[in-house]
């Protein structure tokens, strides 16, 4: 039964057919034509040779890091994947990386691996750890016979004469170098070094290949101890450089970065000590001056005279107080005399002395009228001297 496909269905099938692995990572060499760098930032062009042409697009996110601007007529190598642009029914090359012609296979592999590891975040700045300010022991992973080691040791000992170094030898070139470097890095994790310099002297791209080994790059990224990579000279970048916590342009530079200048630190501390002592001395001087000023005051200067003044004042007060007291006594004594005189004048005893008598009944009541007693009552009469008991025999009222 003849069953036609819709255009979309057919396009989908073509798209699926092109999604296979053989088209997902291709490197193709061709001449650039119809190059357009669109306002959006994307680059559109074709790659062609004498017989064929393929459309290509390199999106802005990919082309931002291009080191050169492609131009029509350039022969370039493009790395990317084949995809189908459905609205036009066109297949095209989605370019991830673009290189000038003549780039070797190693370079290509390098760029691809770099792209991949970068995508995994292995080179992220956030992963980088700070180096210790003053490492207790520096680990050096390199060839024990290389010039790099000599340079590193020279700079380390010059900057920090008391530096502690542990060299962990490794092959830095050849097929066995990556495994050897990884083994040394693993070994270093078990030691007490708190920073690692890993590197070698400069060389050709091929000579530095070990430092572009995926396994080594991952080992560097995973190291618990901060790693400073030091490969070659200024211009040689390896993938290890990107994964390391710090990249030094040369082995000597790595050594510079790893230890501080001992002399400078000693001078700094000695200057701090001096400043500390100076400011304390100043503080004490200021306080002493203040104390001196206080001790100039009259009271502290001649405490005796002050005390004498006080004593004199007390004496004066004392004298004044005595005078007052004596005056008071005289005054009170006079009052007492007067009161005693009055009291005497009122005393019944004096009256009795003049011949009067006091008559009391048996209950002790003083009798002032004859009515207060009956005939036969006993009354008691007090005289000036002595007393009488009498019986009432008669009365006149």
């Amino acid at each position, binding site marked *: 039964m003849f069953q036609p496909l819709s255009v979309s269905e057919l396009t989908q099938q073509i798209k699926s057919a092109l999604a296979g692995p053989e088209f997902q990572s291709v490197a193709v060499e061709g001449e650039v034509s119809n190059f357009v760098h669109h306002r959006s930032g994307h680059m559109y062009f074709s790659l062609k040779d004498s017989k064929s042409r393929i459309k290509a697009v390199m999106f802005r996110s990919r082309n931002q890091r291009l080191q050169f601007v492609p131009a029509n007529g350039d022969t370039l190598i493009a790395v990317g994947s084949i995809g189908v642009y459905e609205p036009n029914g066109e297949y095209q090359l989605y370019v991830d990386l673009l290189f000038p012609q003549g780039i070797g296979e190693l370079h290509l592999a390098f760029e691809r691996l770099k792209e991949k590891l970068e995508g995994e975040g292995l080179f992220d700045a956030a992963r980088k750890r700070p180096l210790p300010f003053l490492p207790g022991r520096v680990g050096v992973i390199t060839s024990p016979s290389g010039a790099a080691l000599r340079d590193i040791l020279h700079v380390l000992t010059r900057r920090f004469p008391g530096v502690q170094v542990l060299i962990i030898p490794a092959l830095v070139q050849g097929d066995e170098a990556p495994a050897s470097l990884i083994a040394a890095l693993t070994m270093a994790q078990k030691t007490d070094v708190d920073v690692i310099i890993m590197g070698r002297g400069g060389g050709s791209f091929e000579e530095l290949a070990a430092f572009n080994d995926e396994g080594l790059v991952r080992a560097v990224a995973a190291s618990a101890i901060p790693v400073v990579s030091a490969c070659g000279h200024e211009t040689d970048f390896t993938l290890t450089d990107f994964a390391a916590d710090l990249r030094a342009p040369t082995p000597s530079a790595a050594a510079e970065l790893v230890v501080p200048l001992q002399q400078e*630190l000693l001078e700094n501390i000695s200057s701090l000590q001096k400043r500390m002592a100076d400011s304390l001395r100043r503080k004490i001087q200021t306080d002493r001056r203040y104390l001196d000023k206080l001790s100039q005051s009259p009271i502290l200067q001649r405490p005796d005279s002050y005390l004498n003044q006080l004593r004199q004042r007390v004496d004066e007060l004392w004298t004044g107080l005595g005078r007052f007291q004596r005056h008071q006594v005289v005054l009170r004594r006079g009052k007492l005399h007067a009161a005693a005189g009055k009291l005497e004048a009122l005393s019944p005893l004096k009256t009795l002395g003049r011949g009067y008598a006091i008559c009391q009944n048996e209950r002790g009541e003083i009798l002032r009228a004859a009515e207060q007693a009956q005939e036969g009552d006993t009354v008691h009469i007090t005289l000036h001297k002595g007393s009488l008991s009498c019986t009432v025999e008669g009365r006149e009222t």
Partner: protein
Amino acid sequence: MTELKFEEALARLEEIVRSLEQGESGLDEALVLFEEGVKLARFCNNKLDQAEAKIEIMLNEGQIETFEVKDA
């Protein structure tokens, strides 16, 4: 006190010097700071006073021996 780091000791020493130089603390406090500062400076100097470099190399079997530096 747990193992003090050199840079922490140095930072604290700098802080003490600044504080003393500003002269805001009383004499008692200044003396306490001074004493701490002296200890810190001694600690830092001790850390720096390793006079001799020690350069060793790890051999295949994990043994460590002194590395002879040959001048080129």
